[in-house]
């Protein structure tokens, strides 16, 4: 009896609760929770765990942010390597020209168009209205420009290719565009365009019914000392020269 009374006052612990780091008292089920007043070891380990998890989450968030910034140059590199998206592939162009074979079963008609800006006084026209080419074969075409005024005029040109789906297959090896061309008074010059149509043209499903491509050049007057922003030409982008 006395023993039982003693047990009631001083209960024996029966097993250790691993998570709570305390003893479960049999008979009383006194359970200690890790609250503010708990022993330092129990709370400390939980805090360390929390801090570890928080560190991992923070590292993950910063990593995602860095990846989103790095995605821009990485995607550009990927496009250069694989040539997707119509981007100029660095170093790939000469290999294509050397190794391509003409696709003789697909004859394309290339029409030539010439325009000048209204303030530009050059006379600019193509020397042939059309040329029949096949994809995979290099072709040469000529434009003619004349400066009928009394003073030298500097011209600079840009071009356009229609239909737009075909534009990515139209590659110019050398032409007269995007650089200032100086014509003295009364001078007349031949302006050649050396181009080819990529053999992948025949595989594009959007271009099945296309057999006419229009190449259109427009000349503008260049102002002295004015350097226009040209598409990737002077910069370090994928289309920049050398």
């Amino acid at each position, binding site marked *: 009896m006395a023993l039982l009374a003693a047990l009631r006052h001083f209960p024996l612990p029966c097993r250790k609760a691993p998570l709570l780091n305390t003893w479960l008292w049999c008979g009383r089920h006194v359970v200690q929770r890790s609250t503010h007043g708990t022993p330092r070891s129990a709370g400390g380990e939980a805090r360390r765990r929390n801090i570890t998890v928080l560190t991992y989450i923070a590292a993950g968030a910063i990593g995602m942010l860095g990846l989103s910034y790095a995605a821009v140059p990485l995607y550009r590199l990927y496009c250069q390597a694989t040539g997707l998206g*119509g981007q*100029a592939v660095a170093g790939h*162009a*000469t290999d294509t*020209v*050397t190794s*391509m074979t*003409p696709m*003789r079963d697909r004859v394309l008609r290339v029409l030539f168009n010439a325009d000048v800006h209204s303030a530009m006084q050059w006379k600019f026209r193509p*020397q*042939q*209205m*059309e*040329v*029949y*080419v*096949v994809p995979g*074969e*290099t*072709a*040469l075409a*000529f434009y003619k420009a004349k400066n009928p005024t009394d003073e030298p005029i500097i011209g600079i040109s*840009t*071009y*356009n*290719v229609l239909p*737009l*789906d075909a*534009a990515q297959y139209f*590659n*110019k*090896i*050398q*032409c*007269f*565009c*995007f*650089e200032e*061309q*100086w*014509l*003295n008074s009364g*001078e007349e*010059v*031949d*302006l*050649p365009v*050396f181009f*080819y149509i990529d053999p992948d043209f025949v595989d594009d499903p959007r271009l099945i019914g296309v057999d006419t491509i229009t190449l259109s050049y427009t000349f503008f007057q260049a102002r002295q000392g004015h350097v226009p922003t*040209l*598409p*990737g*030409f002077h910069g370090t982008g994928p*289309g*920049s*020269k050398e």
Partner: protein
Amino acid sequence: MSTAMNFGSKSFKPRPPDKGAFPLDHHGECSAFKDVYMRCLRAKGFDNSACRQQSKDYLQCRMERDLMAQESLEKLGYKDLLENEKEKENKKGKNSNHAGTQ
């Protein structure tokens, strides 16, 4: 055109030429070759494949007179013409050998 405000539609992105711009032929040094090429085009119904020899001659003229950066003709897509020429030279060589031995 590329200036149309069509949201989501394709626009044309002009690309610079692979080998840059041709220097202007101010003195018309290669105009003769150009005339030969244009006459060939008109005669053959503007078929580029029929006039490749003349276009090769024009580009060679430009390269000789420093109006174009020197480039091997294979890199300009004239590999087949060069091979034909080599074959013809080989045949000529063989024929002259035959004539010499006989």
